[in-house]
């Protein structure tokens, strides 16, 4: 009875030593052979035995005690800074070939296909630099506040880290995330379609507190310029309303440790809900002013071309969006039967209210479970139980945020914005599941 119950929810055990005669036959040609190849290439260390008749006594992984059960393990602090298992080495940041030409002004994508929950490990946080990254000496780093303030001031890292701090979990998404897909399908996996997003716990000081200390003129100074200390001295305009809300942080902490150099060590701006370019890394200066600054990354880039030839300027909010990460493009399902469809949803306007999932390309939808915590301007993990009958399917997710904004389809988005705007593509993603178990990237209007 228990076995009967477990069957629909069974995931085929790997490696495949438990094959019946008929299984062996089907492995020799066809779908499982494909899977077997996937095993071999996915992990050279995992030696897949030549398909052989199952040992009748049971699973050799149980019957033959492995070396980790029969020998002494490694001592503490073998790695003073711990590393992921060697078996996880495929899950790393990767570039998309041909997207950019020089590594100093490029993107590496987060491997969303392998992540759980809502927090992105700091070492897997996507990267986007405009002029390379440096590992800045924190003792020589300064934050300057100038412009419409009573006292123009300078802070050392000691100063900033002495101030009362807060820790908040927020997503950061590049405005160009999914930008390669505006016109057509271009890339194979969720790492490349959606991997310019990460979600971390950031620790720092509300910028409001520092501006208060300097006596900011909140009446005239409705715009703030943030500037980085790198070669590009990246600049972006931030609305004072967001700073007054207390949400904007001058942050030094990320996931319990200091920021990683690639993410702005020792200081970056955290601007919840707003595209990543505004979260100025290596933050060195904040200027309070009375008009937007029209910087290079708000007058030449990060502007959205509309079908009428006008560019939208100062588009900053990341609107409601979601994607299924398992199963997703470039994957192959091990078997029919039970599968947990899992994905992430987020909105720059607040909390995720609900996520619905379709397995028939958007004809019918079922509500997904939102896993806790559900936080404002953070990634929310969703899951749906599903039994795959082995027939072709098209998987989609559709998120709704607390303002009632419903994630649009490609058809809806393109009808208004065309296909050339590069930035802010929040369309519903479709993954086509073939009978072979293979999942690929497709677009449905």
């Amino acid at each position, binding site marked *: 009875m228990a076995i009967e119950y477990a069957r629909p929810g069974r995931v085929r055990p790997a490696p495949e030593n438990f094959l019946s005669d008929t299984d062996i036959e089907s492995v020799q040609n066809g779908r499982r052979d494909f899977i077997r190849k996937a095993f071999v290439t996915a992990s050279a260390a995992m030696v897949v035995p030549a398909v052989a008749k199952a040992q009748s006594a049971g699973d050799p992984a149980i019957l033959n005690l492995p070396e980790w059960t029969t020998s002494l393990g490694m001592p503490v602090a073998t790695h003073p800074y711990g590393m992921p298992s060697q078996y996880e080495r495929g899950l790393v940041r990767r570039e998309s070939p041909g997207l950019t030409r020089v590594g100093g002004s490029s993107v590496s994508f987060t491997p969303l296909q392998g992540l759980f929950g809502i927090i992105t490990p700091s070492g897997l946080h996507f990267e986007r630099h405009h002029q390379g990254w440096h590992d800045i000496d924190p003792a020589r780093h300064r934050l300057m506040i100038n412009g419409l303030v009573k006292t123009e001031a300078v802070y050392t890292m000691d100063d900033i880290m002495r101030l009362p701090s807060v820790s908040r979990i927020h997503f950061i998404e590049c405005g160009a995330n999914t930008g390669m897909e505006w016109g057509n399908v271009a890339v194979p996996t969720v790492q490349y379609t959606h991997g310019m997003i990460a979600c971390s716990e950031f620790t720092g000081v509300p910028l409001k507190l520092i501006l208060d200390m300097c006596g900011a003129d909140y009446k005239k100074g409705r715009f703030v310029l943030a500037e980085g200390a790198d070669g590009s001295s990246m600049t972006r305009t931030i609305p004072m309303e967001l700073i007054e809300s207390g949400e904007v942080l001058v942050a030094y902490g990320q996931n319990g440790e200091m920021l990683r150099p690639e993410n702005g060590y020792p200081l970056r701006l955290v601007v919840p809900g707003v595209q990543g370019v505004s979260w100025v890394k290596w933050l060195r200066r904040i200027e309070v002013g009375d008009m937007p600054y029209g*910087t290079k990354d708000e007058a030449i880039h990060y502007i959205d071309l509309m079908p009428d*030839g006008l560019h939208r300027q100062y588009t900053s909010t990341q609107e409601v969006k979601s994607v299924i990460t398992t199963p997703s493009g470039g994957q192959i399902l091990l078997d029919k039967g039970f599968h947990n469809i899992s994905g992430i949803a987020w909105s720059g306007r607040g909390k995720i209210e609900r996520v619905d999932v379709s397995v028939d390309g958007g004809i019918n939808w079922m509500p997904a479970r939102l896993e806790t915590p559900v936080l404002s301007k953070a990634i929310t993990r969703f899951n749906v139980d599903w039994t795959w009958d082995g027939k072709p399917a098209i998987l989609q997710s559709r998120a709704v945020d607390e303002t009632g904004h419903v994630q649009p389809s490609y058809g*809806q988005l393109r009808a208004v914005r065309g296909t050339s705007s590069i930035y802010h593509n929040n369309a519903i993603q479709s993954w086509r599941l073939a009978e072979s178990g*293979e999942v690929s990237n497709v677009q449905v209007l």
Partner: protein
Amino acid sequence: MSRFSKTLIGLMVAGTATAVFAFDRYENIGRPATPAEVAAWDIDVRPDLVGLPEGSGNVDDGMDLWETHCASCHGVFGESNEVFTPLVGGTRADDIETGRVAALIDQSFPQRTTMMKVPTISTLFDYIRRAMPWTSPKSLSDDEVYAILAYMLNLADLVPADFELSHENIAEIQERLPNRNGMTTDHGMWPGASAAEGGIGNGGTPDVQNVICMENCKTTVEIVSALPDYAQDAHGNLAEQHRGVGPVRGVPTGPQPEEGAAPAEQSSAAAVLAIANGKGCMACHGLANKIVGPGYNEIEAKYKDRPDAETYLIGKVKSGGSGVWGSIPMPPQGHVTDEEAQALVQWIMSGAKAQ
């Protein structure tokens, strides 16, 4: 201890002497900035030209400076579409009148150049001064920035060849920028106050909305685009980009390792690639694309039939060269040992494989 307290006293004196913080609950944190400090960092130029330094420079000088500092990446005429998106091109005389770039409307130009997009002249001055040349930002004097900008404006047919650009006439250029009327802020993606309240845009109302439909939401599912095979293979072996356990595996794509292929050979290619990265070769050469210098695939193709290719190229790597591939020279790579140079050249000549 005594050194420390002296510093503190110094700071406190400075603090009381010059200014008092408006909010003094956080005592002894931060200090007022000196005017020289603010001047050193406050280099932004706003669209209303506040922040613009005094100075001038002409097209002729700008051309020389451009060739020295900018042409290697952006092309002699700002046309460098082989490496970076061109800075200049795609604008017409009419655009100067209308302030709208017609090629953005009829999409007649294949790329969007900088000059086709930029609506504010301040942006170009500000950005070149703060960030270019890319590898040595902030090395240009203000006059040099004026001269280079004058040259760019001349390339775009906005000013004549004998033009001198200065802080006094730059506002007139703003009135001629081809895309000065090409921006709109009428959207809901500014997270601050609306335009009506002194901010930007409509106050946050989205332009595209969907509905929550649960059943029979449409009758057909039309797949309008699917992944082309080349794009699947272009991203390497997807099987290696997925976990080896769990409910799914990655699909094997791209060239598959031969059964029993010598792994030693593969890792040696990876090791040489690491040398190429570590010694900075990859900043100027792509495996299969030109950056500043030729792609390694091009080098292999050019010399594959030359018997002394290895010796010749090792010499080139060590002592640098110019004129073979274009006017941009390769500096001598003196920091590379003889063994490394040999390994690099052998690697290039055997296909410069990543793995």
